[in-house]
């Protein structure tokens, strides 16, 4: 028997009553379970009669155990029947629990808030059309060349940008040497900005075995406080100049890179195709996220705090993942950023809110459009994934089922479907690429990211 009422938009209070018969059954079960662990003098373990236990410890000892047996199934049944969608662990308040009497308890739980959907068909979004030009291909090929560059020692020449200089240096402040101001055989890449600002620039044009004096001022917010804002004079000896030399862009280079292609033309065409593909992917993704954002903007929903927090946790999980790839832990990173992790969390709150809202809105649309994924579809998907690997389909499926991955997959596929639906119904306006000045930065970044991706595909590790 259930009664439920909404406390506010996203909180529900359920009052549940369980008949006394079920209560007694549960108490019985609880006794049979607990008797195995309790010992009373005069009785062997597991042989203590229930009456003896009750008179010794009081009848309450079985309540906790019985509650565990009772509450879970009843609660989930009630949730299903009332069509609630809880989003966190429920809080329970016991009203009545006694032998031979019905059990009554109250449960308060956060549920998915109701979403007031706005217009989600025919959303108008702008899409910037970009094309891969031969320039982009050139740029990519050039970056490949640079990566495969070799350092050649220059005996007779001046230091240039991008050269690697092996130097000894010793710095003084007001005539006094200071800590960290001295090094020998230090490899410095000019233009990399590893040393204090101005240091590298002043070395340009130096020759081998030349000694130079370099004057720099530490910035006000330099990491070492005692050095910040001070002026230092470094005596630098250039011991060696190494210059990267890039391979010629020709058939030979292509052959060295990959076995797939033997001529530059072929390789170029392939690169162009791959760049195009990844551009299209990126366009698709940004289009999708834009549509989702718009749809979410149209909808009205109070996002419960707990969902925002959860989304924040997700974001941090992602951050941690990226950090780990760079060999950093989240804690270490927290010490590096200003204000620590708390501030970072605060900064990301808005993004989390947006994401949480988008999820809620998508869920609402899924519900409204009655989008569903059948088990067969999930199976298809697994087959697709499995296809390229030498694993047994049935085995994988069983394993997935055990890990609860099937549900997750179905969930993802529902999202996929609803996003496709939104895109299909969206009104996409193609616009020409805007001023270079505006999108330029983004463009370069995107291309760089793209190249990283591509590398794995084009030039396998040797």
């Amino acid at each position, binding site marked *: 028997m259930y009664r439920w009422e909404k406390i506010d938009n996203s909180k529900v209070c359920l009052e549940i009553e369980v008949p006394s018969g079920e209560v007694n059954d549960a108490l019985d079960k609880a006794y049979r379970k607990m008797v195995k662990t309790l010992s*009373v003098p*005069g009785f062997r373990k597991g042989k203590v009669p229930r009456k003896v236990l009750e*008179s010794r410890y009081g009848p309450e000892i079985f309540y906790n155990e019985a509650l565990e047996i009772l509450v879970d199934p009843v609660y989930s049944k009630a949730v299903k029947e009332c069509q609630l969608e809880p989003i966190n662990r429920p809080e329970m308040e016991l009203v009545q629990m006694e032998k031979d009497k019905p059990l009554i308890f109250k449960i308060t739980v956060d549920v998915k808030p109701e979403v007031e959907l706005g217009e989600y068909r025919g959303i108008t979004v702008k899409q910037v059309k970009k094309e891969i030009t031969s320039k982009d291909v050139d740029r990519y090929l050039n970056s490949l060349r640079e990566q495969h560059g070799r350092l050649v020692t220059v005996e007779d020449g001046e230091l240039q940008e991008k050269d690697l200089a092996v130097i000894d240096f010793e710095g003084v402040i007001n005539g006094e040497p200071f800590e960290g101001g001295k090094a020998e055989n230090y490899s410095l890449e000019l233009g990399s900005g590893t040393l204090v600002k101005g240091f590298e620039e002043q070395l340009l044009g130096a020759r081998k075995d030349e000694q130079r004096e370099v004057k720099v001022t530490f910035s006000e917010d330099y990491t070492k406080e005692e050095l910040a804002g001070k002026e230092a004079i470094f005596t630098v000896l250039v011991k060696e100049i190494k210059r990267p030399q890039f391979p010629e862009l020709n058939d030979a280079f292509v052959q060295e890179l990959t076995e797939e292609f033997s001529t530059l033309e072929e390789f170029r065409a392939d690169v162009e195709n791959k760049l195009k593909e990844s551009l299209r992917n990126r366009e698709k993704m940004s289009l999708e996220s834009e549509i989702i954002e718009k749809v979410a903007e149209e909808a009205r929903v109070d996002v419960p705090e707990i969902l925002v927090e959860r989304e924040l946790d997700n974001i941090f999980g992602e951050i941690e993942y990226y950090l780990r790839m760079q060999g950093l832990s989240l804690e270490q990173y927290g010490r590096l950023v200003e204000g620590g992790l708390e501030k970072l969390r605060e900064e990301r709150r808005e993004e989390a809110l947006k994401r949480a809202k988008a999820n809620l809105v998508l869920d609402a649309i899924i519900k409204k459009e009655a989008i569903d994924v059948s088990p067969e579809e999930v199976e298809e998907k697994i087959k697709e994934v499995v296809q390229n690997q030498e694993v047994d389909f049935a085995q994988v499926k069983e394993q997935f089922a055990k890990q609860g991955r099937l549900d997750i997959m179905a969930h993802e596929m529902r999202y996929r479907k609803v996003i496709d639906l939104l895109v299909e119904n969206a009104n996409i306006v193609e616009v020409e690429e805007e001023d270079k000045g505006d999108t330029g930065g983004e463009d370069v970044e995107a291309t760089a990211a793209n190249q990283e991706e591509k590398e794995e595909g084009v030039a396998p590790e040797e």
Partner: protein
Amino acid sequence: MRNPRDIIIEPLVTEKSTAQMEEKKYSFVVDKKANKIEIKKAVEEIFGVKVKDVNTISVKGKPRRVGVHRGYRPSWKKAIVTLHEGSKPIEIYE
């Protein structure tokens, strides 16, 4: 008569004694010097039941040793009281 509570010291709750309750037999630890008639009267008075029979056993204390000192646990008397068929049961677990 002595106070019946001085004769019946405590109910004996063990696996065996609990099983015997099915046959209306209740076990008690009783005063060592008490005889069956005294026990019968004491049980009838305390619990308000009708006693059919009383069996007693003197339980000898078990030998115990603490370091070099040897000794015995105290001996005690156990009484198994059988109630009349019509009598109401004794509620030991109160």
